[in-house]
């Protein structure tokens, strides 16, 4: 059952919390490059080192970001749920995934093609700015949390 | 009685005074012997039992290649290793060689220096092997060594203060020799434990317990200068029984710079 499902409509796209308020023209440009996918639990959505070409918005389910290194157990560093987004390496050279993304539950996500999104952000600086205004705080919050996780706040 | 914990006492370069402190616990010696098996204490007994030992007390510093090897053996046989005294904890008075030319020392004392095997430095036990606890003092305080033995026996933390000698002076009601006599004293930068005996006998502390846990030696050295100590005298006051303890070594180095 992994794979694309019912296509997304422009109204659904516009209603998504992360994209809400971006210009209709901008969203319209994205729509052809956007699809909805469903994954079974335990599906690896992305692998560390793979080219990062997509931006994910979670509609349903739960996704874990993991660090996988040979000879060591997998380490989950963050889990994400409905309304949350992941995958921003398409924005940052060299456009490679830095973590594995794996579903913990059956999940439904909206996927936007990274290159197209990049082109649209370039073409519409105003929407681009708004988009980044939403993305950067999320990244900042995760960076803050990661620092405290590194600090090992509950350590003896 | 259950199996008694096994105690060993080891000697490296030292004067024997710290292990003698144990024998000076006249009131407690037989009680200690009842609670622990004194398995290896050559100064006190001809009966030497082989390791492993639950608690090793190590006196003295490492000054010879042979001793550098021997301390590894001691550590390997010891569940807990506690150093006793300034030699074992900071290299002792003999660490003054660390600041000098040992060859010259050797020639000064011995007519046939080639007979003498020694290292260029006198170093603390911690510089060679992991140490579980360091008991300060030149010599150690016998109440403290009993406390450390009891604490290791019962797996609790030894009650050994790490702050300044001044606290002991004040608790004892001793009038400060610096403030009331202008006598140079290392008490403010030296660790408590002796009972502030020097100030109680109207002389300045000479730092035989080594630096306290927050020693502000720069501020204290400048005050010692105001009290009339020349840089050479400031250097000497730090470089005595704990010359190689890091805070005192640094303070001594600063005095050397000051002295030009």
């Amino acid at each position: 059952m992994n794979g694309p499902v019912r296509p997304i409509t422009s109204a659904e796209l516009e209603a998504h919390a992360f994209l809400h308020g971006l210009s209709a023209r901008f969203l319209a440009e994205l729509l052809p490059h956007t699809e909805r996918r469903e994954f079974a639990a335990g599906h690896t959505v992305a692998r560390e080192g793979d080219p990062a070409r997509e931006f994910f918005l979670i509609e349903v389910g739960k996704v874990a970001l993991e660090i996988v290194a040979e000879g060591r157990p997998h380490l989950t560093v963050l889990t994400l749920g409905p309304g949350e987004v992941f995958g921003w390496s398409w924005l940052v050279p060299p456009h490679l995934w830095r973590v594995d993304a794996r579903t913990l539950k059956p999940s439904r996500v909206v996927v936007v093609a990274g290159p197209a999104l990049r082109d649209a952000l370039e073409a519409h600086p105003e929407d681009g700015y708004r988009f980044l205004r939403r993305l950067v705080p999320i990244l900042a919050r995760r960076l803050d949390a990661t620092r405290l996780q590194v600090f090992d706040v509950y350590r003896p | 009685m259950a199996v008694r914990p096994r105690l060993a006492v080891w000697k490296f370069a030292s004067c024997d005074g710290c292990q003698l402190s144990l024998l000076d616990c006249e009131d407690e010696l037989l009680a200690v012997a009842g609670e622990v098996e004194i398995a290896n204490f050559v100064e006190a007994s001809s009966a030497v039992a082989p390791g492993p030992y639950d608690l090793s007390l190590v006196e003295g510093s490492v000054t010879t290649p042979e001793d550098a090897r021997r301390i590894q053996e001691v550590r390997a046989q010891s569940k807990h290793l506690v150093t006793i005294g300034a030699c074992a904890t900071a290299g002792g008075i003999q660490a003054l060689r660390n600041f000098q030319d040992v060859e010259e020392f050797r020639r000064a004392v011995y007519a046939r220096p080639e007979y003498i095997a020694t290292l260029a430095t006198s170093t603390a036990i911690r510089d060679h092997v992991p140490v579980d606890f360091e008991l300060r003092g030149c010599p150690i305080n016998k109440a403290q060594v009993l406390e450390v033995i009891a604490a290791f026996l019962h797996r609790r933390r030894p009650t050994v203060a790490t702050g300044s000698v001044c606290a002991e002076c004040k608790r004892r009601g001793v009038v400060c020799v610096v403030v009331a006599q202008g006598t140079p004293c290392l008490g403010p930068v030296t660790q408590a434990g002796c009972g502030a005996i020097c100030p109680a006998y109207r002389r300045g502390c000479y730092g035989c317990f080594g630096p306290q846990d927050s020693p502000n030696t720069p501020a204290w050295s400048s005050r010692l200068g105001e009290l009339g100590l020349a840089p050479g005298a400031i250097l000497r006051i730090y470089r005595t029984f704990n010359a190689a303890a890091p805070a005192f070594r640094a303070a001594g180095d600063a005095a050397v710079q000051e002295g030009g």
Partner: protein
Amino acid sequence: MSTAPEIAGPVAPVPSHGGPLEPAPFTVRARAQETRDTVSLVLAPAPGSEVPAFRPGQFNMLSVPGRGEVAISISGDPGRAGEWVHTVRALGLATQALAGSMPGTLIAARGPYGQGWPVDRAWGKDVVIVAGGVGLAPVRPLLLELLRHRARFGRLEVIYGARTPDDLLYAPELAAWRGRTDARFQVTVDAAGRDWYGDVGLVTQRLPDARFDPASAVAFLCGPEIMMRLTAETLEGRGLPREGIWVSLERTMQCGVGLCGHCQFGPYLLCRDGPVLPYRDVARLLRIRGL
């Protein structure tokens, strides 16, 4: 010289006990290994002795005699008389001695001490509880007390963070709580392996979708200072006023009764005025380093 003065002199009665620091004998009635380094102990008093009642958030001073006394918050059910329950994490030698004590071990205990959670401030409001690490222990009596009076307040949102899934306390009870329909318990860990299907991330990561009415809610926080501060700031960001937030603070405690001075935190003696304090009063102080 012990002769009584003839005219003036000693009028006050000589106290016949060791004063407020004098402990009472308890024995370990039951012991549960919570995690690798943490156990819960049920302490029973000597036969014929009473166990003083306590309020959620209070603490006791405990020791295995001769091995060091430490302040440990009470983690038992305030509704259950006749025993004290403590959750102890073996960190130093004193806590190691406590954590290593088996049923029948003699424990010296005294208390309860300090100001607990202002439970009555929850009535009629939504309640957010955020606990981190062993910070769940002092929160447990609060939770039990709240759940006993479930009808008296609104939504209950509990977020509990730990280092790894292996560090979670009260696992069976936690599962039961998470199954409740009248409260939401979120559990998140800092790091996990593939066998963990729960949330991973800091407790603050779980806050954005916590359900409460900021205008009418209270929050009770317990955990490392930095975690509480971040949580409080995030809650404030969601519109919960400072006045509705309480935190439980930690400093060394020795006497437990406000005499020894160890647990000072700015104007507070935490053993006496705390450990639970209004965040409003301490928010600024929590930002001062080395206070």
